């Protein structure tokens, strides 16, 4: 690239969900003529269907653009789009580590929210120059001056020259570009030093293998070089490197210090090229890797089973393929008496779990059954052994447990002050311990709670949204383990325990939850040829019971005029219907029944 390093700007855009991050990215792409207008789709960088639908960014993306600034010079802009959700905090931190600056987008009508702060702190911690931007000034409820003051007060950065823009309408986008030129420092680094490149994203491409997106701190890389990934020690030969453009990859002769680009080196799976790892050259390696690498640990687990047992191999292939692109996803085979062969899958958080489930269904066309999510419990047994349990099936007999601990989070909820009462009720109900409460401005509050992770993973987001009409935002981080009074709740159908419905719960919560589950199951299990008792029990004691009455009558097809076909079809239908059911002992349970007990608040 003919543009010198002084005119390179590496930056991210950070924002709370829906504050306009992706829309602003689109406008920047347009204004730098990076995309032919006919290729312009809304939210171009969010190229998974799911991302567009949910309005969130799941994967990081990077684009190299050329901007002709007012000073008459051309600048290289490397825009590194980041995931916007707490589940992907680590990915965010790596993306930010690849930048010198961050454009902070704040909604002029909503002000600072939970993720705004969380991400800003990550950026400040990474030593980034923050360029605040106030978006959505076209909204009637926009209060740009109030938000400007909020940025200065709450975040503590000057915002007097923060551009007021409308990414939607394209208003004042040029001011954002000029701010980037002016405030984001050019990258440092030694071209002649041994190669040090930070992997901030990687994804699997069917033709080229894993494409890794890197930021070069020092050194150079060229096709033909043998690279070494410092965390794993694995070595690969660079087949191709270059720059990510808005709609394609553009190969180049090499990449050098300060630049952002991609490397393809016939790497087979993203787990071999993990985000955060450092790339160096095999024959002239750097002495130490870049700081900050860690292998991510799943926090939430659930069982995933194919609805049709015959598709178990397809499910495995699909998970394999998803893992090619998602090093944070873990899965191990498990079997359930109720559901047959499946996988115990680990996720970064709830959103991550939902995304994987949806992708399995949509992209791989699989009908899946998932079990209730579980966190990882730490159990000290009476013999002193410490075990970690992420599957209720493996929960030891209570008589063998000396102490049970559960993961605890530090949670911040940002909300208009009128909802404080509702939120406190909710957190109290979720066994939260109130820490403190700060006023962000006259009518917005930051409520700090200690909340058990297992109270968040079921339906906390939904409950929070419905109690605050969607105005509150929420962020949490794991803070450690805490002693807890836990029990395993089992569900019995017609006297048999259904392992897939068991879960671990706080003793105080067992009774109401058991009752709700029994009720929900009695709604969802169709009447059968005999009466089906549904019982919920803890340690052999039944604490809730419902009954599904026996079926009285089904379709009596006339068998008249010799039309056997119709009758046969009915029988076929019955046979097909049986396939969609899970035979649990003597009881047939439809798949929806498993799903329904996961969402008890509806």
């Amino acid at each position: 690239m003919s543009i010198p390093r002084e005119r390179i700007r590496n930056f991210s855009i950070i924002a709370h969900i829906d504050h306009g991050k992706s829309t602003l990215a689109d406008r920047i792409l347009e204004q730098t003529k990076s995309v032919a207008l006919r290729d312009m789709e809304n939210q171009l960088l969010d190229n998974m269907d799911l991302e567009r639908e949910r309005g969130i960014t799941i994967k990081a993306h990077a684009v190299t653009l050329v901007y002709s600034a007012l000073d008459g010079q051309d600048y290289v802009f490397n825009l590194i789009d980041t995931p916007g959700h707490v589940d992907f905090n680590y990915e965010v931190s790596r993306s930010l580590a690849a930048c010198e600056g961050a454009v902070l987008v704040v909604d002029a009508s909503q002000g600072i929210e939970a993720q705004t702060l969380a991400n800003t702190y990550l950026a400040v911690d990474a030593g980034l120059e923050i360029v605040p931007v106030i978006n959505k000034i076209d909204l009637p409820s926009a209060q740009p001056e109030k938000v400007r003051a909020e940025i200065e007060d709450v975040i503590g950065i000057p915002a007097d020259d923060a551009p007021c823009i409308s990414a939607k309408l394209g208003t004042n986008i040029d001011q954002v570009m000029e701010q980037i030129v002016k405030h984001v420092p050019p990258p440092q680094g030694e071209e002649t030093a041994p190669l040090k490149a930070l992997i901030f994203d990687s994804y699997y491409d069917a033709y080229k293998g894993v494409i890794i997106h890197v930021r070069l701190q020092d050194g150079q890389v060229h096709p033909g070089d043998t690279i070494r990934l410092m965390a794993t020690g694995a070595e690969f030969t660079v087949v191709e490197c270059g720059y990510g453009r808005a709609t394609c990859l553009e190969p180049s002769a090499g990449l050098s210090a300060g630049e952002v680009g991609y490397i393809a080196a016939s790497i087979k799976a993203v787990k071999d090229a993990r985000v955060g790892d450092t790339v160096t050259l095999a024959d002239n390696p750097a002495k130490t890797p870049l700081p900050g690498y860690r292998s991510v640990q799943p926090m939430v687990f659930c069982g995933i089973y194919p609805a049709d047992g015959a598709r178990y191999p397809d499910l495995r292939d699909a998970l394999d393929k998803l893992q090619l692109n998602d090093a944070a996803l873990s899965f191990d085979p498990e079997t359930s008496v109720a559901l047959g062969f499946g996988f115990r899958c680990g996720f970064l958080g709830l959103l991550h779990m939902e995304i994987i489930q949806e992708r399995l269904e949509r992209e791989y066309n699989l009908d899946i059954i998932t079990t209730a999510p579980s966190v990882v419990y730490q159990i000290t047994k009476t013999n002193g052994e410490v075990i970690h349990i992420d599957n209720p099936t493996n929960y030891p007999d209570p008589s063998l447990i000396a102490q049970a601990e559960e993961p605890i989070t530090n949670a911040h909820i940002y909300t208009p002050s009128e909802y404080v009462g509702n939120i406190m009720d909710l957190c109290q109900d979720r066994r939260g311990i109130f820490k403190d409460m700060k006023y962000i401005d006259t009518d917005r509050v930051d409520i700090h709670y200690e909340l058990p992770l297992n109270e968040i993973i079921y339906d906390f987001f939904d409950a929070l949204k419905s109690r605050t009409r969607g105005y509150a935002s929420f962020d949490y981080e794991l803070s450690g383990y805490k002693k807890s009074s836990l029990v395993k709740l089992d569900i019995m159908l017609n006297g048999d325990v259904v392992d897939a419905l068991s879960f671990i719960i706080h003793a105080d919560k067992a009774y109401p939850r058991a009752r709700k589950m029994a009720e929900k199951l009695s709604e969802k299990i169709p009447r059968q040829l005999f009466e089906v008792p549904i019982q919920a029990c803890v340690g052999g004691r039944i604490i809730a019971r419902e009954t599904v009455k026996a079926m009285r009558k089904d379709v009596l097809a006339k068998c008249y005029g010799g039309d056997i076909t119709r009758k046969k079809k009915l029988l076929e239908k019955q046979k097909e219907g049986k396939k969609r059911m899970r035979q649990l002992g003597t009881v047939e349970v439809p798949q929806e029944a498993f799903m329904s007990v996961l969402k008890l608040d509806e």
Partner: protein
Amino acid sequence: MNNEKPFGLYLHVPFCDGKCPYCDFYSLPVSEEQMNRYTRRMLETLEAYAAQYPRRADTLYFGGGTPNLLGAERLSALIVWAKECFGLEDAEITVEVNPTENLSEFLHELRAAGANRLSIGLQSANDDELALLGRRHTAEQAKKTVQYAQDAGFGNISLDLMLAVQKQTKESLLRSIDFCADAGIQHLSAYLLKIEPDTVYGKKKETLCVPDDDEAGDFYLFACEELEKCGFPQYEISNFAKPGFESRHNLKYWSCEEYLGIGPAAHSFMEGKRFYYPRNFSAFLDGAQPVPDGDGGEFEEYAMLALRLAEGLTDEGCRARFGFGIPARMKQAAKLYEKGGLSVCTDSGFHFTPKGFLVSNTLTAEILYST
């Protein structure tokens, strides 16, 4: 004619003077010209089949529609010709009849032509229920029709009843049952109203005030019980008869025996093949051939049909037909439902109870597809 087991002959008469709102059988408005063309076509088709199947039939059944609308002359011609083609010695010859004004002369002529069994569409002995069913007759007319038939010499008469219809109560059902018992008939078919999608009922399903499944089940069990008391033991899900008066023709369907159905929407099972005429009157007139509907008579089908009968599935029946008895897994499965009163297992096999018949779809599938 050879010595094979005789088959049943079914002629579908697709004419009605109106469409009952619950009915999805194939039917058309009456027209003298169409009925003549239909009869001619039917005579030709019988002759063609006689060449294809040079065999004996021992039952003839005119179903509809409303076969009596064809009139005695055309029906007689068809009976005579069917005898010419397929023998029909000592045959059961049934004609479905809907009650209407003065059928006396018609019934005499029909009897003279050789018909010996009538199936009369009573449906209910309560005029308010009949009106809601869209029937175009009264209970009084039905009563007269039965008397005329008896006067004409019919000694084998069946009445149709419908269960779980609008306005029905246990009392009104009992009135209908008593009506049948008092009429001196030999056979009764009692059907639970089933709302078919392509009918007037199907389209206004939401506004219909019919009993729910549980109540419908009660009506059915009540009818089975009362009919038994009146001397009509149940021999099939929906059929009841004085001993010896079971419908020979319909039993062929349930015993997986052969039958040849002619006319639009008529179904056949001959020489291991199932086939049927499409629901298309003009195609039939133009000589359209029936459409193949695959093989029939395999074990699953046989068992499904046998389980409609009060006798149920027997080792002997299975062995005679397939060379093996009832599979053990099916017997075991049937045994599971004995406690709940849905099935009865005997030394020779198993059968469903009236309570079992009510859930026979599910129950049959559970047993057939047991592992």
